[in-house]
């Protein structure tokens, strides 16, 4: 009833290729932006910003990066956390060693550093595919963490590689309160998400998807495999690098290389599997899901255990969390391989028909 396309005709190709072709979607998106940029800063509590919204946005960005590489370009990567680490440490070093470097430039340079590392470890993708490539990205994961720990220069000679992020100043405004950090992160993530959406629906995105679906055919059409794959690695690592820098500067405050472990890489991979591989929206949905799930379990398990008269420990919670993650991955792969994003699409299609059944 409310979600109808009737009357919305497109009279130009430009109109047909909008991100939100249906007017109701555009209104919905505008409302969402208003809520995100205006309502939440005015009403949110510190806990919400620091513990939920900021990490959500940061992980969504990392998931976006991984989705570009694995979801759109079809190159499986288990090294996401390593690229985030490069971004974090690069941002720290740029801020540290170059006086008065503008904040935005710091983040761009951090992203570019991560992109360089990404391309270096992506070079093998020119000869190897599938799980072999996953193992190659594992090499990146372990090597980067080791290098950041062992070479004291990266952490300014601190012990065990811990760095404490400096305070950021954007155009004279200090980004020190949770609200300001939230707005800063929100701004960056929004811009990068829109850029990502633009990229994937353009010739760049089509090149990536063709390499993912059938690279032999892509070659025959004239798409340069090497350039396309390396570009995917570069862009993906850029996004992960910026996410890593934000992770250090606007979320944790201080990080160490071990904090960017294989475990984190898997978490981001789970986000895109559950959220929807090859979907921009899916990156956000998956990040929200993976982030909220532990909180949900923390709150739901104790009463459940009490109900079932089972003994309960903190360790048990983390074990159950692992089990739930694993089971959910399998569940989603079996039931809806395209993840939450596809479920959202199906819901919208049902909404178009509502209140009619078909």
């Amino acid at each position, binding site marked *: 009833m409310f979600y109808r396309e009737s009357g919305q005709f497109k009279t130009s190709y430009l109109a047909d290729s909008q991100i939100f072709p249906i007017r109701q979607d555009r209104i919905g998106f505008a409302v969402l932006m208003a809520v995100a940029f205006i309502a939440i800063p005015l009403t949110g509590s510190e806990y919400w910003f620091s513990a939920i919204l900021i990490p959500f946005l940061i992980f969504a960005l990392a998931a976006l990066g991984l989705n570009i590489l694995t979801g759109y370009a079809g190159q*499986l990567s288990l090294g996401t956390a390593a690229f985030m680490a490069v971004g974090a440490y690069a941002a720290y070093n740029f801020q540290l060693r170059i006086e008065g470097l503008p904040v935005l430039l710091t983040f761009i340079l951090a992203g570019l550093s991560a992109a360089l590392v990404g391309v270096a470890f992506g070079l*093998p993708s020119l*000869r*190897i595919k*599938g*799980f*072999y490539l*996953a*193992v*190659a990205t*594992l*090499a990146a994961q*372990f*090597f980067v963490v*080791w290098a950041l*720990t*062992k*070479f*004291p220069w990266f952490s300014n000679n601190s012990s065990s590689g811990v760095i404490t992020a400096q305070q950021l100043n954007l155009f004279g405004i200090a980004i020190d309160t949770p609200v300001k950090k939230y707005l800063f992160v929100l701004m960056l993530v929004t811009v990068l998400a829109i850029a990502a959406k633009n990229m994937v629906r353009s010739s760049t995105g089509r090149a990536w998807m063709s390499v993912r679906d059938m690279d*032999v055919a892509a070659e*025959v059409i004239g798409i340069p495999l090497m350039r396309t794959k390396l570009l995917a690695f570069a862009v993906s690592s850029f996004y992960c690098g910026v996410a890593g820098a934000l992770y250090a500067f606007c979320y944790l405050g201080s990080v160490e290389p071990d904090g960017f472990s*294989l475990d984190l890489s*898997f978490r981001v*991979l789970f986000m895109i*599997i559950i959220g929807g591989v090859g979907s921009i929206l899916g990156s956000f949905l998956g990040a929200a899901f993976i982030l909220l799930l532990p909180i949900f379990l923390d709150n739901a398990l104790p009463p459940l255990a009490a109900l079932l008269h089972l003994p309960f420990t903190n*360790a*048990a919670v*983390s*074990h*159950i*969390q*692992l*089990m*739930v*993650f*694993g*089971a*959910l*991955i*399998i569940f989603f*792969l*079996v039931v809806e*391989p395209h993840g939450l994003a596809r479920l959202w699409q199906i819901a919208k299609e049902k909404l178009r028909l509502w209140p009619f059944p078909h």
Partner: protein
Amino acid sequence: MTFFFEILIGGLLSGLMYSLVALGFVLIYKASGVFNFAQGAMVYFAALAVVGLMDKGLPMWAAVIGAFGVMVVVGISTERLVLRKLVNQPPITLFMATIGLSFFLEGLGPLLFGNEVRPINLGIVDEPIESILTRFNIVVSKFDLAAAGIAGLLVGTLALFFQYTKVGRALRAVADDHQAALSLGIPLQHIWAIVWGVAGFVALVAGMLWGSRNGVQFALTLTALKALPVLILGGFTSVPGAIVGGLIIGASEKLAEIYIPPVFQSAFGGNFGGIEGWFPYVFALLFLLVRPEGLFGEKHIDRV
């Protein structure tokens, strides 16, 4: 010079243990085309089952048999609940499902069997072999040798099994072409149950050996992850490849750990240990660039 040999032999022996884990991968990949990322978790789970059952009061031999039963159940459930539902999906989906499986097992294991670090006592001591020590002045651990022997025996048996028995042939047929094997009357589901059962047994042996050496703890899964470079070197479908790959990885990682850090240390100062953590992967990566299908693997040709 003797030091070099000591490291080399130690590396070769521990390499055979990697081979054991890699063997589990090869079995499952050969028979069902699935790259079972959960093999490491299975090793951990099996070891946990042994110590968990022993904690409940069972003597070791009973715990081992019980653990084997548990692994068989795990294998069959995996086949029925996960693989069967994902039959026509691309390999990458199956791979991601096994990642999910590994997380599931890594949670379930400690939940059922406890997560304290417990040792497994196999009765073999980690002491140098006297005769070799006195004659060549090289330290060769009794434990390492025994473990290598067990691993070698298992690998050899499986290699023969695949090559010469009816079931082994059926497994190879299934790995080559499911449809064709089906049309020949080979019962696919039974085969897969057998394969996952055998892989579970291999995981159990590996778990017991590794657990005996380092104690049964979560780090076991990371050790098992080292089997991946072994597979890359040896080829995903080759049992002898798993042996050779394991030997090479084991030896090279130990040698790298000893001989590379001093180079960095003299240049940069500081401590550069821990190369073992990434060296096998980088080594495998470089190897991949030269020979993507591994030493013994099959070359993959895309038909257009």
